[in-house]
């Protein structure tokens, strides 16, 4: 049986990993949109400006979800519709999966002993921890976007 503090820093280290993973996912999506915007106008400046804009959006999003967690009710902001649960994994009929090239593979394709150490799923955390993780991920992503916009010369 794990002592409480050992269990505490296990969750802390895993939530740090999930924050890193989530913020990178957000960053990926944001970068694609900014690149598409930059590409559309054929100018690197527009890419940098959209990076800053994305940074601003994530900053606001992270901050307002923090406020929402601490009980501020914004009039008119309804809650997200609950996603319809899909068929549980154990009842699904397993399709024959086509081979994917190695670098397109994700943790789901490897069924080995490393999965527990390389993958953090959101089910591990209860609701409040999860929201805290998402807030920190958004703020981290916004910081990354602003930093990138400073690095890239145009």
């Amino acid at each position, binding site marked *: 049986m794990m002592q409480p503090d050992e269990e505490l820093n296990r969750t802390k280290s895993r939530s740090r990993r999930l924050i890193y993973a989530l913020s990178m996912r957000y960053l990926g999506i944001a970068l694609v949109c900014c690149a598409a*915007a930059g590409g559309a106008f054929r100018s690197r*400046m*527009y890419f*940098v*400006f*959209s990076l*800053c*804009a994305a*940074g*601003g*959006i994530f*900053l*606001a999003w992270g*901050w*307002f979800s923090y*406020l929402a967690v*601490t*009980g*501020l009710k*914004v*009039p008119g902001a309804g809650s997200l519709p609950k996603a319809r649960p899909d068929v549980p994994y154990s009842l699904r009929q397993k399709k024959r999966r086509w081979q994917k090239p190695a670098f397109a593979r994700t943790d789901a394709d490897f069924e080995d002993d490393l999965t527990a150490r390389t993958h953090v799923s959101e089910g591990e955390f209860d609701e409040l921890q999860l929201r805290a993780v998402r807030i920190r991920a958004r703020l981290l992503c916004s910081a990354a976007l*602003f930093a990138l*916009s*400073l690095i890239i010369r145009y």
Partner: protein
Amino acid sequence: MSRYILRRALRSLLTVVIVFVAVFMLLRLMPLSGYFPPEMIKEADEATRMVYLRNQGLLDHPMVQLGRFVGNMFHGDLGRSLTVYPKVPIATLLKEKIPVTAAFGFASMLIGIVFGVGLGLFMVRFKDKAGDKLGTVFILLVRAVPSLIYLFFIQVWISKWFNLPLIFYKDRPISWILPTICLSLSSIAYYALWLRRFMVDEENQDYVKFAQVKGLPKREVLKRHVFKNAAIPLIIYIPYDLLMIIAGSLVIETLYAIPGTGGLLTTAIKSQDNNLVQVIVLMYAILSVIGVFLGDLLVAFVDPRIKLTEGE
């Protein structure tokens, strides 16, 4: 208690800053063509435009532009309008227009609250009788029918019956009555509907039944207990409503040709005046945030429960 308010105030200040930054960064994505004064638009070649933009500082990094804008703001300089009111500093522009819209807004809000609450109470009092049905029809009319239609009828008929002037004149107060009434109609309907629904819900709550058992007559219970509880959510909404007044109502200000800030944003966008758009959008964003937080603070005073559960 004061520590709680201080923390809440600080947090709302931080929110304002964050919203300001986010909106400012988004505004950087406005099309570049919106930055040229009218005489520049005709010149076709790219080079001079780029040079113009560069020395305007519009090509610098957004963060740099943010710093410059904030710096100017503290000196009261919000930049100059380009196409809508060429060369006019935006600060003075706003100083003129805001008081007009504010006056109308404030008046209509007062009327809205007084008549709205009155109508709401009236409808609850005569629930499911003629009065209630009449009130519901009015609310339905105001909320469902697009405002342009019923405002147009008001302007044509009512002005004829009470021969009130159609257009707004700064010096003749008689011409203020009609726009204020039109403006207040929607808030009356809102408050009445909301109050009625709240009072009806609260009626079958336990504390109301318990009070009746104690022998208080229904009217007394409604007035003393239920209305007091209804006040809290109402109060939260008022500051937000208050600040939206400055945004003004586009429809009424165009109908009655009131020189307020109502239509300013749409005209600015149509004539691609980025500086003006930028300031107005920032103003709206900041006002709505302050509105939400003022409501939040007000609740702290009114709602006893908040005092007990200190902090979040």
